[in-house]
């Protein structure tokens, strides 16, 4: 075996120029696949992040009927003892909210929005916890001021410190109307959220609507897969309520998420398909120019399987070196764009496809590993045909060439 290995390496070195070209091609293919994987993963994770941040969380508990009719009627009482004990490190945070449709009026304009009562201390799990604020953030669950989106403030032609009137339906079905001062405006990098959500202290909203209930409990876990155990635990803790994970709440994004997984493979096979033509070609040339010597060795008693092993070995060595080079190049590419690619020129388009305006590449070691393994397997498969061609020639004919 050691001998075969040495022979393969020597054979590869016999034609440096051709094999160097081939190595470059393999490296380009591997680097291309890896680089695009990091972008695709970045896109996928960005999409997930936006979906989770968008007040969804990984898992959400709601009353039956709230999704179809977001009304304060469809709410539930929450006491902290009810929260299930989840393993330490699994839950990043949770937030209970009271979220109802409302009408907002400035002196000049009227808009329909969603009014969200929050405890600001718990909102590190959603976009509002990280948003850039002009003015002040809400100071606590008792804060009786509102935080509005920058875009909404612009449309309402109002500003921080001014007053707004909000109309929403109370627990008894009657409308409540109250004036609120604007504590601050938030910038959510995209106008969709800014136009829709107005935040207020949870206790203050509960007082207005005369309820002690909340409409949702949103839970954020550390890793995406952990949503499933978290979901079962929450189901057990809240048997009368609906417990859904983000994939159920946002099926379109979930669909895109799965699609991105599939695209990784599509990409790989297209790129490697293009590479295979060149690879097979070079391997054939490499064995055909040695037909004579291989014929001699076979005439002296070398077995066909040994010939096969040798050709396969050459292909594996070539592929491995190519994969190492390509992975190295892709790491360089990754580091050069690791800060993220600025798509803010396409912010609205990016928002439409569900990503934020900075595309942050994500390098997963399992992706790199998968590409490497699949490339080497492909190298093995590609070497069968050339090996078969050589074996098919009878040693005697080969010697006469």
């Amino acid at each position, binding site marked *: 075996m050691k001998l075969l290995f040495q022979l393969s390496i020597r054979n590869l070195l016999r034609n440096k*120029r*051709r094999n160097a*070209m*081939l190595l*470059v*091609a393999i490296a*380009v*293919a591997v680097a*291309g696949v890896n680089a*695009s994987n990091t*972008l695709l993963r970045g896109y996928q994770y960005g999409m997930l992040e936006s979906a989770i941040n968008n007040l969804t969380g990984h898992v959400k508990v709601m009353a039956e009927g709230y999704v*179809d*009719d*977001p*009304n304060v009627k469809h709410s539930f009482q929450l006491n902290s003892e009810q929260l299930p004990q989840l393993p330490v490190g699994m839950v990043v945070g949770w937030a209970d909210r009271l979220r109802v*449709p*409302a*009408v*907002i009026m400035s002196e*000049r*304009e*009227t*808009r*329909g*929005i969603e009014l969200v009562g929050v405890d600001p201390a718990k909102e590190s799990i959603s976009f509002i916890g990280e948003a850039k604020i002009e003015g002040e953030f809400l100071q606590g669950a008792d804060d009786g001021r509102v935080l509005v989106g920058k875009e909404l403030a612009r*449309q309402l*032609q109002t500003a921080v410190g001014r007053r707004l009137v909000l*109309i929403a*339906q109370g627990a008894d*079905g*009657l*409308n409540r109307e109250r004036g609120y001062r604007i504590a601050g405006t938030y910038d959510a990098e995209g106008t969709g959220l800014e136009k*829709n959500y107005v935040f207020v202290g949870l206790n203050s909203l509960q007082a207005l609507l005369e309820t002690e209930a909340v409409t949702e409990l949103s839970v954020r876990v550390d890793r995406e897969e952990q949503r499933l155990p978290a979901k079962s635990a929450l189901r057990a803790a809240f048997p009368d309520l609906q417990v859904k994970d983000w994939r159920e709440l946002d099926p*379109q994004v979930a*669909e*895109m998420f799965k*699609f991105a997984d599939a695209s990784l493979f599509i*990409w790989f096979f*297209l*790129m490697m*398909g*293009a*590479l295979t*033509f*060149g*690879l*097979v*070609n*070079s391997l*054939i*040339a490499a064995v055909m120019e040695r037909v004579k010597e291989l014929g001699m060795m076979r005439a002296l008693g070398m077995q066909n399987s040994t010939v096969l092993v040798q050709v396969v070995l050459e292909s594996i060595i070539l592929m491995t070196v190519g994969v190492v080079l390509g992975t190295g190049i892709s790491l360089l590419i990754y580091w050069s764009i690791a800060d993220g690619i600025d798509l803010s*020129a*396409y*912010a*609205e*388009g*990016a*928002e*439409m*496809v569900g990503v934020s305006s900075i595309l942050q590449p994500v390098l997963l070691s399992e992706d790199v590993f998968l590409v490497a393994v699949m490339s080497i397997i492909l190298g093995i498969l590609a070497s069968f045909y050339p090996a078969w061609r050589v074996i098919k020639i009878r040693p005697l004919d080969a010697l006469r060439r």
Partner: protein
Amino acid sequence: MTQTLSLPVPTKASKGDTGLTWRLAWRNLWRNPRRTWLTAGGIAFASLLVTLSMSLQQGSYDAMVSSATGFYLGQAQINHVLYEEEGKLEQTVAPADELRRSLEQVPGLHVAPRAQVFALASVGQRSFGAAVVGVDFEVEQKLVSFFDRVTQGRLPVDEGEVLVGEALARNLGAQLGDELVLLGTGKEGGIGALALTIAGLYDSGRPELDRSLVFTHLASVQNGFGLGDEVHAMVLGFDEIEALAPNLPRLSRGLPDNAELRTWQQLLPEVVQSIELDRISAVLFYGSILVLVTFSVVNTFIMIIFERTREFGMLLALGTRPGIIMRQVQAEALMMWLVGTAIGLLLSNLLVGWAAVQGIPLGMMEEMAAQYYMPSRLYPAISLYAMSLAPLVLLVGTQLAAFFVTLRVRRLKPVEALRAE
């Protein structure tokens, strides 16, 4: 390799014999048919892949644009210059009737006036914020698909009727025949109010619209909110979107003061941008595929040149100038390219042609597609651009590959070359 020498001894007379060059190139290619097939196969694979996906891409963009514009916004709109920015009630286009009549002179153009006011919509004790849009239902149906989505009842017929989204009706606890009260601010600052009977419910497939838009006759909104002969948007559309561009100068001529024409590119920047984003990522993809294939062509030519070192040495010894040998190899590269692209283009035209008739069902992805304004079947666009770009890039690639590889011929010393194995 002991083939007979296939290049003639060039004399001054045979130098211009291009027919011979081509014949020889063709024969040289088939000296090693397997290698030629594999290289041409790579070229075919790349040109098939790139032309096919470019056609699909263009087809999906066209579909996206036509369903996005045909959904609700129209192909172009005339608004007050500040309406998009500020959306104020008083930012209207007037006189509406006269403008509409003059626009309707343009052949094939549908003109739909809309007036839109934010109001508090109540049924009984329950209220939600909503925008009430006054429209001309008859022309809207010709222009956009939105009004085909009535799920219960029918479109409003007389001025006291209203069309409400299913989601809003559910939230309001309202049913067909109930009275919907709309309360808002009138143009002159007073209170504007309407009481309308719910004639129909719609489900547009977009919950956020279903919750926030109610539709009634234009005149009701104009009267109820003190708007007179004014509208907020004049929505324009041709049966075929291609008719828009050539008519633009005519449409924007003679607009009232403070009014401006905006095309779908301005109305739907997110569609334009997501197309742009998709284009950029596709360019990366095409680029890498083409580079890969070019590398494999380079490799093939390296093999060809080394294999024939002795043959070239002989020719040089006989007095052939390096330029002629190089020309010969270029011709071989061209032929290789021809075979590859011919196969690639044949396959891709067959596939595209078939798909253009049948459409490609998006299947599982339908729901997702709907969000991006995509129909359930995708029809690729057939265009010369999509069909020619990849082959042209590959042509340049193969020619350059052959050129750089054969530069070596110039440095070849006949005597040494003849001795090469």
